[in-house]
């Protein structure tokens, strides 16, 4: 399983395009907002959590379509499913690689962008913590959609339609936690709920991904 993660990471490092594209998308998406809503600091501070979260969500979605597609087309996914590693393990490894490639760079860039959006500096720790819980959830849920749409016609349109409604709870709790922090309340309950969802998704999402991958190969 670790070998599979490393293999995916090597592939990404060699090509490099997908990961940097998602990151660039995230940065540009956030930078566009001050042009859209105007540069008043109060408004920017107010909308900063939502903007960062939605940009992160869209960036995760953008890179998601390619998650299984390459392996599916060149047949290596079939080999992986035939290998002694159970399909759930393949699913976890692919999701972990996706998160390391797209989620972690996001965590590093997000505080800088938050400063551009006039978020108070003492909230940056909370922002990184929330994103650290939210981005793996986005990868897990998105991977279910990516596995389900393997080999579908118009999968590029289909994937957001399936995945975005399922992202709503993540968005709500992450935004509520950040808002609570901004207004001086404790973000703890929201983060705990987010953590609980992450634990649940860690168990259930690989099952669904594995079932979908097997279905794609029957």
């Amino acid at each position: 399983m670790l070998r599979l993660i490393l293999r995916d990471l090597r592939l990404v490092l060699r090509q490099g395009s997908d990961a940097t594209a998602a990151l660039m998308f995230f940065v540009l998406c956030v930078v566009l907002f001050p042009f859209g809503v105007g540069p008043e600091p109060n408004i920017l501070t107010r909308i900063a959590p939502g903007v960062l979260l939605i940009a992160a969500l869209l960036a995760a979605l953008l890179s998601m379509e390619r998650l299984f597609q390459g392996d599916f087309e060149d047949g290596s996914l079939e080999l992986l499913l035939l290998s002694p590693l159970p399909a759930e393990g393949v699913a976890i490894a692919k999701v972990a690689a996706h998160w390391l490639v797209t989620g972690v760079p996001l965590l590093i860039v997000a505080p800088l962008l938050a400063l551009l959006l006039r978020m108070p500096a003492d909230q940056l720790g909370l922002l990184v913590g929330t994103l650290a819980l939210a981005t793996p959830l986005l990868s897990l849920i998105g991977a279910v959609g990516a596995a389900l749409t393997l080999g579908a016609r118009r999968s590029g349109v289909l994937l957001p339609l399936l995945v975005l409604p399922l992202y709503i709870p993540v968005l709500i709790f992450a935004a509520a936690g950040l808002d609570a922090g901004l207004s001086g309340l404790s973000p703890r309950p929201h983060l705990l709920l987010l953590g609980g969802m992450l634990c649940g998704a860690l168990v259930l999402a690989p099952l669904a991904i594995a079932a979908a991958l097997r279905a794609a190969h029957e």
Partner: protein
Amino acid sequence: MHRFANPARFLKIANAVLPWAAGLSAVCFAAGLYLGLFASPPDYQQGDTVRIMYIHVPAAWMSMFTYSTMAVAAAAALVWKHPLAEVYAKAAAPLGAGFTALCLLTGSLWGAPMWGTWWVWDARLTSVLVLFFLYLGYMALVDAFDDPARGNKAGNILLLVGAVNVPIIKFSVEWWNTLHQPASVFRLGGPTIAASMLWPLLLMAAAFQSYFFAVVILRIRAGLAARRVQTLRLGQAN
């Protein structure tokens, strides 16, 4: 359950049920519409807009009923490879989407005169909207594959994922809503619902339910016939 697994036997039973369901639906619609539009009094707070409830509430009930039965059918299809289950799920989906759309639309039309707005980001409205998107996603996914069996399988998995998520979504938007805005005035007419309003409501609910059964039988028949067409075509191609 397994007694109905055989499509031929199912068709026999379904065809016997169909006229009764259709008839019951027609009778209930006639009685419910008469009671709802003529014989029931306007509400003392909401006036005649309360009559929208006789469409809105049954549609909301049916949207939930349809999704839960589809999720159960999806589980049956995945676990026991029940041949009818996925035909049912596929047949029921457009009906569920229709009920959900109707629920949202009439809710909007009720909200406009009563709350003064077409839409609020209330927990219930938002979760029903998400339910509508789940229906659309399922229908799009099932249709997106050249091989119908693959589409059905993917759709079943999505239905189960959605079944896990619907309670979470409901819970999360309820929580989110109470954090951001005061609870909105979501209640039926007065403190308790009067018998003069309960009867048309129940009749309309029965009408919607039997309408669903009648139409879903038609759609299942179409689905089974489509499968047969497909196997015949495959047989010819070889």
